[in-house]
C-alpha cells in the first residue's frame, strides 16, 4: 500500500488527529490550538504544493501519488484540486482560531476537523456519487454540534437530519440509473429520470426554496458560530460537488433545460431569502436566510456557468466566508457580553450606545452579503447580476426584489440599534459590560479585510479561480 499519496495527507492524517483529539477534548484550549495548527498547516501546504505532486524537500524528491486505493475504489486528490482542499482547511482554521473565546461545544475543534476531512473525502471519492454516503456521515456528525447544550433536540435539527437522509437515495439511484448511458440519445427516459433524481437530491441537500423550512428553526436554536461553520462547509462542499457532477456527466450538462432550471431555482431561492429576511425580527434567524440567499446565488452561478457564473462562484467563496465569519463572530460576541440579549429586536434596541463597534460590525457584514460596492462580495455579485440580466430580463426584477428585501431588513436593524425606547429601557442599556480593546481590534480587522477584498479583488480573490481548474469538461477554458 502506497502511503505517499495526497489523500493520506489531506484525509487520513486529519481524521487520525481527530481521533487522537477525542482523548484531550476536555482540554479545550489545547484541542483548539492543535486543530488550528493542523488546519493552517494543511491549508498552506495544499496552497503551495506543486501541481505535479513532485515535492523537492531537503535535496530529495518525493513523488506523491494522487490516488489511494481502498477496497477496489479510490480516493483521488489531484494537484488541481488542492486549491479547494486549501480553502476548506482555511475555513476550519478561521472558525477554530476566532471561535476560541466562545462557549461552544468542547467537541467543536475535533468535530470541525473531522467534518473538513470528510468534505475533502466526499470530493475525492471515486465513483464520486458514493460521496452521498459521506455527506450523510457529515450530517450525522454535525447533528452533535447543532443540538444545543442542555436541551433536547429540537424539530429543526430533526428535520435537517430527515431531509438530508432522504436526499441520499436520490443521489445513489441516479448514479446507478445512468451508468453507461453516455452513448444513449439525449431524450432517453433514463437520462431524464437520472437528471430529475440528481436535481431533487441536490435540492434537498442544499435546502433550496421551498425545502429550506428547517434552516430558520435550526438557526434559532443553534449557536451562531457552529451554525455558520457547518453550513458554510456544506454550501461550499456541495457547490463544488455539483460542479463535479456536471463536469463528469456529459448527459446531464447536455440535457436541455438543466441550466435554465438551475437558474430559476437559484433566483427563486434568492428571492425567497430576501423577502423572508425583510420580515424577520431576530438576528439569529437571519443567519438562516443569509445561508438561503447565498445558496440561491451559488445555484444561480452554476446555472449561468457558460455566462461566467463559474468565475462568480469561485470569487464568492472567500468573501462569503469572511462575511459569515464577521456576522457570526459579532453575534456570538454580543451574546457572550450580554447573555440577556436573545437576538430579538426588542432586546437589541439601542445597542449602538453600549456596543457601537459590534453594532457597526453587524451592519457591515450584512452589507457585505448584500453585495455593496467596495465590500468583499461585490465583484462576484456584479458578475452574476450582469450575467443574469444579459441572458433574460426576467431575473433582474426578482433579484432586485430580493436585494430590496435584505436592504429593508438592514435598515430596520439599523433603526433598532440606533434608537432607544424612552418609556421602557431595554436590557441592553441597563446591563453592564463594555467592548474590550481586543474585541474592537478583531471587529475592525474583519471590516478592514472585507474592504480590502472588495477594493483589491485581483489580489485576494484571483487565486480562488484555481478552484475551477479540475472542471475541464464543464469549463474548457479554465
Amino acid at each position: 500500500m502506497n502511503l505517499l499519496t495526497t489523500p493520506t495527507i489531506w484525509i487520513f492524517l486529519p481524521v487520525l488527529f481527530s481521533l487522537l483529539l477525542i482523548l484531550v477534548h476536555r482540554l479545550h484550549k489545547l484541542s483548539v490550538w492543535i486543530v488550528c495548527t493542523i488546519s493552517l498547516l494543511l491549508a498552506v501546504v495544499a496552497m503551495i504544493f506543486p501541481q505535479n505532486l513532485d515535492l523537492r524537500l531537503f535535496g530529495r524528491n518525493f513523488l506523491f501519488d494522487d490516488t489511494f486505493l481502498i477496497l477496489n475504489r479510490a480516493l483521488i486528490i489531484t494537484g488541481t484540486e488542492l486549491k479547494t482542499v486549501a480553502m476548506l482547511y482555511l475555513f476550519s482554521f478561521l472558525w477554530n482560531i476566532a471561535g476560541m473565546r466562545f462557549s461552544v461545544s468542547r467537541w467543536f475543534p475535533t468535530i470541525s476537523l473531522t467534518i473538513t476531512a470528510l468534505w475533502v473525502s466526499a470530493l475525492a471519492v471515486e465513483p464520486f456519487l458514493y460521496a452521498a454516503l459521506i455527506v450523510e456521515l457529515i450530517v450525522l456528525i454535525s447533528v452533535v454540534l447543532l443540538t444545543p447544550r442542555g436541551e433536547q433536540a429540537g424539530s429543526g435539527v430533526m428535520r435537517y437530519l430527515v431531509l438530508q437522509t432522504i436526499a441520499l437515495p436520490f443521489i445513489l439511484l441516479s448514479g446507478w440509473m445512468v451508468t453507461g448511458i453516455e452513448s444513449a440519445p439525449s431524450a432517453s427516459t433514463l437520462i431524464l429520470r437520472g437528471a430529475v433524481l440528481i436535481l431533487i437530491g441536490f435540492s434537498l441537500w442544499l435546502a433550496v426554496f421551498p425545502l429550506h423550512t428547517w434552516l430558520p428553526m435550526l438557526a434559532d436554536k443553534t449557536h451562531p458560530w457552529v451554525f455558520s461553520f457547518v453550513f458554510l462547509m456544506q454550501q461550499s462542499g456541495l457547490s463544488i460537488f455539483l460542479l463535479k457532477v456536471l463536469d463528469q456527466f456529459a448527459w446531464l450538462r447536455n440535457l436541455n433545460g438543466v441550466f435554465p432550471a438551475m437558474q430559476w431555482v437559484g433566483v427563486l431561492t434568492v428571492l425567497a431569502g430576501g423577502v423572508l429576511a425583510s420580515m424577520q425580527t431576530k438576528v439569529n434567524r437571519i443567519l438562516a436566510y443569509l445561508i438561503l440567499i447565498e445558496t440561491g446565488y451559488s445555484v444561480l452561478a452554476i446555472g449561468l456557468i457558460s455566462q461566467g457564473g463559474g468565475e462568480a462562484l469561485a470569487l464568492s467563496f472567500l468573501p462569503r466566508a469572511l462575511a459569515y465569519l464577521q456576522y457570526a463572530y459579532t453575534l456570538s460576541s454580543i451574546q457572550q457580553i450580554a447573555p440577556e440579549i436573545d437576538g430579538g429586536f426588542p432586546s437589541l434596541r439601542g445597542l449602538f450606545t453600549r456596543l457601537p463597534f459590534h453594532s457597526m460590525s453587524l451592519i457591515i457584514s450584512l452589507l457585505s452579503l448584500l453585495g455593496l460596492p467596495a465590500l468583499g462580495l461585490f465583484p462576484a455579485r456584479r458578475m452574476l447580476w450582469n450575467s443574469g440580466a444579459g441572458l433574460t430580463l426576467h431575473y433582474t426584477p426578482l433579484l432586485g426584489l430580493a436585494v430590496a428585501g435584505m436592504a429593508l431588513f438592514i435598515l430596520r436593524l439599523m433603526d433598532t440599534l440606533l434608537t432607544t425606547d424612552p418609556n421602557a429601557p431595554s436590557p441592553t442599556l441597563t446591563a453592564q459590560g463594555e467592548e474590550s480593546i481586543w474585541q474592537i481590534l478583531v471587529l475592525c480587522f474583519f471590516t478592514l479585510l472585507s474592504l480590502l477584498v472588495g477594493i483589491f479583488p485581483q489580489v485576494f480573490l484571483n487565486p480562488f479561480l484555481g478552484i475551477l481548474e479540475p472542471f475541464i469538461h464543464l469549463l474548457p477554458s479554465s
Partner: protein
Amino acid sequence: MSETLRIVSAALLLLAAAINLVRRQWALNILALGLQYVCVFLVILEVRSPLLAAIKLIVGLMVTLMLYMTLVSSGLIESLLVRRRLSSGEVFRGTIALLLVLISILLSPVLQQSAFPQSSQLLLTASVGLIMFGLFQMGTITEPLYLVIGLLTFLSGFELLYASLEFSRVLEALFTAVNLSLALIGCFFIVKDVESRSA
C-alpha cells in the same frame, strides 16, 4: 432458500415495520426493530451471499442493542407484558399501515417493469414497504426514538433495494458506518430527551 420462507420473511418484515409505526411501546418497538433486521437478512439472501448478508444482520442487531441499552439506562422502558388499550391514533396509524402494505404490493410490479427489472417483486415489495413506512414515521413523529427508528427503517428499505442493483465493498462499509452513526445519534437524542425531562 425456499420461496415460502422468503415470502414469510417479507411479510414479517412489513409487520415489524407496521408495529413500529402503530404501537408506542418502547420495548415492543425495539423487539420489532430487531425482527426487522433479521427479516432484512433473510430477504437479502436472494441477492447476497450469506456472509455478506450477515454484515447487515450484525450491524442491525448492534444498532438495536445500542438503542435498547440506552433506553434501559434511561429507566423509562416499560415491560413487554404491559397491556395498553389501542388509542384512536394507533387505530389511525394501523389503517395507514395497511394502506402502505397494499400500496407497496401494488407498486412493486410497476416498479419492476419500469425501473428495476433485475430486482424481484418480493424484494421490491419489501424495500418499497420499508421506505414508505420509514417516510411516514419520519413525517409524523418528532419523538427521538421513533424518528431514529423511522430513519433506520427508511435506510434498510433503501439498502435492500440497492443491494439488488449494485455491490461494492466501500458502499457496504459506508452503509455500515451510516447505520452505526445513526444509532449513536439516536442514543444521543434519547439521552438528551431524558435529561431535559428530568431537569
